[in-house]
């Protein structure tokens, strides 16, 4: 993984010192809150419902064991013993004291981490496929390009005060696991007819109150033009994006109002005018950064493990874990293991300090010191030898992290919602807990098959509900929590925005409504091989509406 050079280390250390001074001045009354707020936000510090919240960047979701241990240390020393992994592959602490934050940032800097640009109207943490570098279906590792974008965009003088926040995601496999079409810029690594690697470029995706799937502006962008083209997009956005209304300030609105052709023409004109020359990515620089992400030396091993097969035969829980939480590695004899942070009845994305330590130990012992955070709020051990799976499983189980539900209906994304968030209009975590208890991780969940439920506690859509196969949006109506359901959303390469199925449900009835939707799917699907999303796309909303609103007495229409 990437290691800070002297410049990076000095830069981050300087930022910590600056922020320490800013906090001192704030506490001494030399800065007002209005003066201080932009500084704290640019360092990832929010004021939330109960306390401050610190959002720490995990660039493209990649972590070392040492970094994970530091997060656990910080959780114990400065917070309440846990952290929350987010849909932006970041980690949030929910209870830090302002006076401690400079020390926390200094501790983070000691393991090459920071919270810079995890908030504010700037280019945010660049995200990537959580299987980057190890996926069997991958064309190229997206992380070197994500790192190049990160370095280029950090404190970029022209793009630090954009009309609104700006999110970039990079995916390196034909299967989109980074939801690139829900980002301001989505980069899909592709190969052209000459066999060269480059990017298909999507612009203007986004969720929030006005959801749009990104539109493709380039079929093939050569690698060398990555930064020049990103700069052209951002320059057009910075100049033309609306600043009069924050709800219409994202590039998705500019694209919608200006039109795809006009926006593409403007970007191409800006790109051509600059000639790309000043920002052309030298191949040797790409190679230098890529070397940081060189795969660990994994000697090919037998494609099956007798030890694993024996255990599968006599341990149904382990067999379920292998079925849902283990996927093939690009090197035979190895596996990618998903550590589910979705225990049945638990809080999606939360991990205790002890659990973080346990996962760090496992990364060190069994995964070549590498960990990933997925946008689905799980952790990944990317380099596990098949023969080690039993040991990894046993150690995960000992700390409550072996829930066999990755990709199943109880693997739910949920934002913090009204339990923590100052913007939320309803709670989302309790709905996720009750849904996971209703469907579990056993035979029923397995019969249902792949199904993504995503829950947001307000219209800002941090829980990605628009791209959930079943999306749930929590709202407040007349003092009561109410939940709007969308169906047919998808965040993969066939991205789509879910359709509102009808009037909302109360907190009491929403779980039953989801069950009605699932039962309708089970009754109408063309066999187990037809997933919920495929069935919905074939059937449309009518049978689900009928089941929910005509036949189901539980709905409060």
């Amino acid at each position: 993984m990437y290691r800070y050079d002297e410049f990076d280390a000095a830069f981050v250390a300087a930022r910590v010192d600056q922020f320490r001074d800013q906090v001192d001045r704030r506490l001494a009354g030399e800065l007002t809150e209005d003066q201080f707020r932009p500084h704290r936000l640019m360092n990832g510090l929010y004021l939330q419902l109960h306390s401050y919240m610190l959002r720490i960047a995990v660039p493209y979701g990649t972590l070392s064991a040492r970094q994970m241990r530091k997060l656990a240390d910080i959780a114990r020393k400065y917070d309440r013993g846990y952290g929350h992994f987010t849909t932006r592959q970041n980690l949030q602490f929910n209870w830090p004291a302002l006076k401690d934050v400079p020390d926390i940032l200094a501790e983070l800097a000691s393991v090459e981490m920071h919270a810079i640009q995890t908030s504010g109207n700037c280019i945010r943490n660049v995200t990537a496929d959580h299987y980057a570098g190890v996926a069997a279906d991958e064309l190229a590792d997206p992380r070197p390009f994500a790192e190049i974008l990160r370095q280029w965009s950090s404190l970029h003088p022209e793009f630090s005060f954009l009309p609104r926040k700006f999110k970039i995601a990079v995916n390196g496999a034909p299967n989109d696991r980074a939801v690139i079409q829900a980002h301001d810029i989505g980069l899909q690594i592709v190969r052209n007819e000459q066999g060269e690697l480059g990017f298909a470029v999507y612009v203007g995706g986004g969720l929030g109150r006005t959801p749009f799937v990104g539109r493709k502006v380039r079929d093939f962008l050569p690698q060398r033009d990555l930064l020049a083209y990103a700069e052209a997009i951002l320059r057009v956005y910075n100049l033309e994006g609306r600043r009069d209304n924050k709800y219409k300030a994202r590039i998705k609105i500019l694209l919608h109002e200006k039109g795809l052709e006009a926006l593409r023409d403007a970007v191409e004109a800006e790109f051509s005018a600059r000639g790309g020359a000043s920002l052309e990515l030298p191949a040797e620089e790409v190679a230098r950064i890529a070397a940081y992400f060189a795969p660990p030396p994994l000697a090919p091993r037998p494609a099956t493990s007798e030890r694993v097969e024996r255990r599968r035969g006599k341990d149904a829980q382990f067999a379920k874990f292998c079925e849902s939480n283990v996927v093939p590695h690009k090197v035979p004899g190895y596996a990618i293991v998903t550590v589910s942070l979705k225990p049945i009845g638990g809080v999606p994305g939360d991990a205790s300090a002890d659990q973080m330590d346990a996962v760090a130990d496992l990364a060190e012992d069994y995964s070549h010191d590498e960990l990933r955070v997925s946008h689905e709020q799980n952790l990944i051990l990317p380099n596990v030898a098949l023969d080690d799976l039993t040991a990894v499983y046993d150690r995960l189980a000992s700390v409550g992290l072996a829930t066999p539900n990755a990709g199943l209906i109880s693997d739910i994304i949920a934002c913090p919602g009204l339990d923590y968030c100052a913007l939320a209009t309803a709670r989302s975590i309790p709905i996720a807990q009750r849904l996971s208890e209703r469907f579990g991780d056993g035979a029923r969940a397995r019969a249902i098959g792949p199904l993504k439920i995503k829950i947001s506690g307000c219209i800002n859509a941090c829980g990605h509900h628009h791209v959930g196969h079943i999306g749930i949006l929590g709202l407040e109506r007349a003092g009561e929590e109410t939940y709007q359901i969308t169906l047919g959303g998808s965040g993969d390469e066939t991205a789509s925005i879910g359709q509102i199925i009808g009037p909302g449900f109360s907190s009491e009835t929403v779980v039953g409504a989801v069950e009605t939707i699932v039962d309708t799917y089970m009754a109408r699907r063309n066999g187990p091989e037809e997933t919920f999303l495929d069935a919905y796309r074939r059937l449309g909303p009518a049978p689900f509406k009928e089941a929910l609103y005509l036949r189901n007495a539980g709905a409060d229409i």
Partner: protein
Amino acid sequence: MNCDALRWRRRTPTEAPSGERDIRLTQIVTANRLVDGIVVFQDASGGWSEDFARAAAHEDVRDGLARASRDVAASLIVDPYAIEVELRNGHYAPKALREAIRATGPSVRRDLGKQAEGFAPIAAAHAPTEKPHVSL
């Protein structure tokens, strides 16, 4: 930030959306303590307490907000605003779910926040919950 939410949470008797003053509401003044962000409530002496039970209830909250503004200027607190409370079983409790959760702690972590310190509103001790039909 969500401006709708801010408008809602910062609504005070003198800033009612209709423009008309309504001083019949019972309100308390709350804020976050600057140094650590912890939720605090203005008490009868004009000081700040972590304990909801010590919050001073007013029919006219303007004086309380004025005192709070001075404490903002003195760098003691941030983001003060008034919330509506109502009497339930002889105890005041926040009317809005948002404020009940803020005064209590996360409904999904009973070991955290004011509920863990014994500082939650008495009438709201069981309020923010995933269980249906529990009265606030």
